[in-house]
């Protein structure tokens, strides 16, 4: 059976389950005797076990199974909940997350071993009846039917009896040629061949599925026969389009003995297996290892939103027929009405589609309570995390990207921001530090704030460090205002922690955060006040696909400039332009504003003489701003961003293209890359 098609669902659901488990564990830590929580965690572990066993991820299944055992004992009050058990469960959760991550990346669960955890789990329930534990192990072996047929209760008796009567029980594994067109027919021939002198007692996948071709290329059978397995194998290999046949004995003790023995025998079997390999075997292995399932990004959508979308589309169709009718009668007024209507629908449609892509930011925030718990334990600082606005929705692409930068900021707050408890006391602050994580929508953007009530940023230390790291000179430092100084934190090669800890302070921190957020079209700001705390503010655009833009003329060409990077538009006289070291600047509102000429940047040929009045688009990037001289303004418009594709990805000035109402292509200028 090819389970790859379910892989996406498996990953999605596993992540969800792990997240729930995480939440419940955190709650359990504060409320250790809460049976409901234990039940819930047990249920999740059980679900995970089932899913992973079906998918053939045995390490995950094994670990969750062991967790289940412990939880079961907790449920039945055989052992008591303790801090230690919760810690172990958290460790298990980490390993499980690591497994799922590996599965996401490679499609395999990887080599990571969880034996030490399983041992720990065993120790917890060592007081228990050992047999019970064994019993359950057998369960799980039966659960992973997918790889090997396991002998079920029902067939056991039959096999036992027949072995006593001198039959041999074989496990037959048949692999069809991957190019085989009529798999069901081939399988049928195999069945017939076997049934000539043996009896099939079980098949995996079931016979019905095989008849319907509901299997990949491999199927397995358990048969009873009096003839030698070599003979059977040779017979089967004579059928065409059979890639491989392997037959192994099922021993009597395998059926009757304890589960440990089963595993042992199985291993032995694996080595004993006689395999006749068709010539393509090696090749086949190669392709199998290379075959990495391609994972798409998925979004779970509320059915209401889809219904809404559906409604809008039907309205759109109605409007279309309305327009068609107008064509015949030709009344201008009707036409205008219809167009207005169409406008309304497309706007709503746009909103609706955007909403489908939106995911609550909760998905990112959820992992932080756990992180804070671990960090405060490691650092010996008491920290409480306050979160609000988890329901704020952001675009799916943003969700994936924003996690790491936020982790970084939170770690910074805890490591550098929040002081040691005794220092906090000296400053008259409560011993417990507070980190606030707040999200809220603001106009066309989403704001995420990370705030701590720690020591704030020591501007002088930042400057001193920057001088030491040769980011700025002493003179620059003296004239620099506080805001600029704080922004030094975001320069690469900057790290103020004197002692490098594994939590933060490897000097690769904040500049990475900044780059990441800018790549998402957002900005980072910092507000800080010494000994009161600091606040990092991230501002992200709501969506990345459709933006507001200003269309401008440069020469005869049209370009779009994203509105969110534009501060204002001014007109200047050409004789006001001054030059400082070959850089054109203008004095504007008592600051010098560097000027850049769009026609030079965009290599537009221009014969026109310079006009007296120049239109300047003032753009801002964080604290910096610059003026861009354009030849004319066309207007503001909502545009759909299309990429230029891989072929033109090297062109840095252009962020993409959009198609205007008349079918013309206008290029989108990446203002941020220009200054």
């Amino acid at each position, binding site marked *: 059976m090819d389970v790859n098609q379910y892989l996406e669902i498996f990953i999605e659901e596993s992540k969800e389950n792990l997240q729930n488990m995480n939440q419940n564990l955190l709650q359990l830590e504060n409320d250790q005797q809460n049976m409901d929580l234990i039940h819930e965690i047990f249920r999740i572990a059980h679900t995970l076990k089932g899913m992973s066993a079906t998918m053939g991820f045995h390490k995950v299944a094994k670990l969750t199974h062991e967790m289940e055992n412990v939880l079961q004992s907790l449920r039945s009050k055989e052992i008591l909940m303790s801090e230690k058990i919760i810690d172990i469960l958290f460790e298990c959760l980490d390993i499980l997350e690591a497994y799922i991550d590996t599965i996401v990346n490679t499609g395999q669960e990887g080599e990571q071993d969880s034996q030490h955890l399983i041992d720990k789990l065993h120790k917890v329930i060592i007081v228990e009846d050992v047999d019970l534990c064994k019993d359950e192990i057998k369960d799980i072996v039966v659960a992973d039917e997918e790889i090997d047929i396991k002998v079920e209760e029902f067939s056991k008796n039959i096999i036992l009896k027949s072995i006593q009567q001198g039959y041999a029980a074989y496990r037959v594994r048949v692999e069809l040629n991957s190019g085989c067109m009529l798999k069901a027919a081939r399988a049928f021939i195999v069945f017939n061949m076997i049934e000539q002198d043996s009896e099939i007692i079980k098949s995996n996948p079931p016979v019905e599925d095989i008849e319907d071709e509901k299997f990949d290329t491999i199927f397995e059978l358990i048969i009873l026969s009096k003839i030698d397995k070599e003979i059977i194998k040779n017979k089967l290999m004579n059928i065409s389009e059979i890639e491989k046949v392997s037959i192994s004995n099922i021993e009597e003790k395998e059926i009757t003995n304890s589960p440990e023995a089963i595993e042992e025998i199985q291993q032995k079997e694996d080595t004993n297996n006689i395999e006749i390999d068709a010539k393509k075997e090696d090749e086949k292995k190669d392709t199998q290892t290379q075959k990495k399932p391609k994972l798409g990004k998925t979004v779970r959508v509320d059915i209401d939103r889809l219904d809404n979308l559906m409604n809008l589309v039907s309205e759109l169709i109605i409007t279309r027929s309305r327009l068609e009718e107008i064509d015949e009668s030709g009344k201008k007024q009707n036409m205008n009405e219809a167009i207005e209507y169409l406008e309304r629908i497309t706007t709503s449609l746009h909103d609706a589609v955007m909403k489908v892509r939106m995911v609550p930011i909760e998905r990112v925030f959820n992992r932080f309570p756990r992180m804070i718990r671990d960090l405060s334990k490691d650092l010996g600082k008491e920290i409480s995390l306050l979160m609000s606005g988890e329901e704020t929705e952001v675009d799916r692409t943003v969700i994936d990207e924003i996690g790491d930068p936020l982790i970084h900021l939170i770690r910074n707050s805890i490591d550098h921001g929040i002081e040691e408890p005794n220092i906090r006391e000296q400053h008259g602050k409560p011993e417990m530090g507070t980190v606030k994580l707040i999200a809220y929508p603001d106009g066309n953007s989403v704001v995420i704030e990370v705030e701590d009530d720690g020591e704030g940023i020591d501007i002088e230390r930042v400057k001193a460090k920057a001088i030491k790291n040769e980011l700025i000179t002493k003179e620059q430092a003296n004239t620099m205002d506080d805001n600029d100084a704080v922004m030094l934190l975001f320069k690469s090669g900057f790290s103020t922690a004197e002692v490098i800890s594994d939590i933060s302070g490897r000097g690769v921190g904040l500049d990475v955060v900044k780059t990441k957020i800018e790549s998402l079209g957002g900005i980072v700001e910092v507000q800080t006040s010494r000994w009161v705390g600091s606040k990092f503010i991230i501002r992200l655009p709501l969506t990345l696909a459709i933006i507001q833009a200003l269309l401008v003329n440069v020469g005869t*060409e049209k370009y779009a400039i994203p509105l969110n990077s534009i501060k204002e538009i001014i007109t200047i006289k050409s004789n006001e332009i001054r030059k400082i070291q070959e850089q054109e600047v203008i004095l504007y509102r008592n600051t010098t504003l560097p000027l850049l000429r769009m026609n030079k*940047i*965009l*290599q*537009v040929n221009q014969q026109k003489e310079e006009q007296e009045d120049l239109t300047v688009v003032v753009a801002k990037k964080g604290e910096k701003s610059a003026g861009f001289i354009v030849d004319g303004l066309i207007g503001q418009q909502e545009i759909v961003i*299309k*990429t*230029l*594709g*891989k*072929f*033109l990805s*090297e*062109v*840095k*000035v*252009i962020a*993409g*293209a959009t*198609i205007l109402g008349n*079918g*013309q*292509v*206008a*290029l989108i200028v990446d203002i941020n890359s220009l200054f």
Partner: protein
Amino acid sequence: MDENLILLDHQYVLFTLEKEYYGIDILNVQTIERVTEITRVPQAPEHVEGVINLRGEIIPVINLRTRLNLSRKEIDEDSRIIIVSKDEIITGILVDSSYEVLKLEDDSIENAPDIYNSVDKNYIEAIGKNDDRIIILLNLKKVIETYKEI
């Protein structure tokens, strides 16, 4: 199905540049379009003519004349953009004209000679012969890729 493949393998879309015949494997060709408005892309390499709007998709267009170091020519009625797809990259190729699809037998295809006119040998995969015409079969991969070499 296999038979079809073999047949298709040897069909080429023919087009002209500077009165010479060129061919591209038909399996790489998606459509052939009349020239619409081409938007210049600043800071792009010289042989990139610009981008076009092809039914809502933005497609980059290569000027094959510039690519092959031939002189430029104004776009006219006969000019065509051949939309090709190779290694998941979709590009348009601007050519002087394109009229026919031709089937070439195996034995009428020869390796490219070391020196052939002014066209860089790198871009030539082979030479095809049909009646008295000589057809330059392009190495599409070379024509499209090489962005990094510049």
